[in-house]
């Protein structure tokens, strides 16, 4: 892992590709896109847990909704309060 990280930094390669990390982007409080995920672990209107290469990602909020899901990315819509990595 240390070698990959150093190389990614030196060569300025996208880390999410080299290190198999999730790319999380957020639009305000209302939308989160998680790319490069490893599957959905839990789903309800208040909490969503997603497995990623950097551990489990926990989203808490209200009225959460899966706007779209595919093997490559998950788009969550709703009012997001917290975004947390569980180790």
């Amino acid at each position, binding site marked *: 892992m240390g070698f990959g990280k150093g190389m990614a930094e030196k060569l300025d390669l996208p880390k999410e590709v080299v290190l198999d990390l999730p790319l999380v982007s957020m639009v305000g409080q209302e939308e989160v896109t998680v790319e490069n995920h490893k*599957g*959905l*672990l*839990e*789903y*309800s*209107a208040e909490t969503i847990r997603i497995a990623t290469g950097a551990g489990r990602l926990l989203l808490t909020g209200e009225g959460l*909704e*899966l*706007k*779209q*899901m*595919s*093997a490559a990315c998950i*788009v969550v819509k709703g009012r997001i309060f917290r975004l947390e990595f569980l180790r």
Partner: protein
Amino acid sequence: MRNLLPVLWYYLRGYVMIRITGFSMERFMNLAAYRRILFWDAKGVGGGMEMKTSLAGLKELEECAQKTGCHLEILALGGLPEKMRHAKTHPIFAVGILFFAATLYVLSSFVWVVHVEGNERLTEEEILTACEAYGLKPGKWKKQVDADAVTKALLADISDLSWVSVSIKGAEATVKVAETIVAPTPMEEETPCDIIAEKDGVVEKITAAKGTPLVQAGDVVQAGDVLISAEVLVGLEGEPMETEYVAASGSVQATTWAEVTEEQMLTETEKIFGGKEKENHVLLFGDLELDFIKPHMESDFDKEVLEEKNMGLGDWTLPFSLRTEVYRPYETAEKTYTVEEAKALLEAKCKEKAAEGLAEGESVAQTEIRYETYTDRVRAVCKVTLSEEIGKKQVRKEFDVEDESNRENHSVGE
């Protein structure tokens, strides 16, 4: 955008709304995602989950549900194919769509707006009235308008036009014109004329560029008096002089007098704007104004038109336009002036009025104001002394080209 495109695609192709119930719905979703079946708008409803997916993926999803021990239920079909099916069973929808298309077609086959471009000396109305006479006006059916005929007729009718192009695009007709170059009127330079006084006054300064000056500084002249004559005596000294006629030119500055009266009421109602301004939208169809929703105003208000926008797409103009107005509420208040204040106001007004229309080099030399005070108003009578140009060209009677009979006499004489 990335997410919108497939969703739009599935909207056109048709999609299914399904409901999943069971213990491990997450496993079901992971499996579906792994198998590259797209689903969207998933939301938890009660104990289960509702989502939309493509028609093609439905069969595989059923497999997924079976594997993960979930129960899959089809709620409804959606998308365009479904809408079409719906339209088939409800003919009135189809009729509505057709009616809309037909209305749009009919409305766009009329000329609704006529634009004039390129006119400088001619007014837009002149050209529009001429166009109207040959059948090009708002409200005409496009097929009835013969653009070539209108072009020819305009050229023949208005002599001042050298080029005309009539084009109809959408519901808009554009008349492009080019005006001829006017030949300068020969009278200016050649026709013998005198410089006469326009007003009564005392001559201050006289400069004759051409012609014989007849007055001097200090002379009192009356309106109509000849100041610079067109007659010039030419000839060598000692020989009989000959009279020649020229177009007199020069400037005559004189002191003139004028009287200006102004009035000022002592109490005036004044509008004090304030409060919340409200916007109003008016739909215009030709001359018809349709104002469906008027804002409720508690006090008096002034209207101001902000903009008028034609409703149409690009080159397509429709006979509708939308006018945006703003209503400004005001309260009226009585404003009273003292006599002194009124006088000050009047003085400024009088001076402004006196200076009105003065050209460069002309000035107001003196003002003398007499005030008359009444119970409710003050009246100012202002005697203004002006220093202005009073010379005016006048064609010599015997050389007037406009006068037919004169010209005939002239030729007979020769």
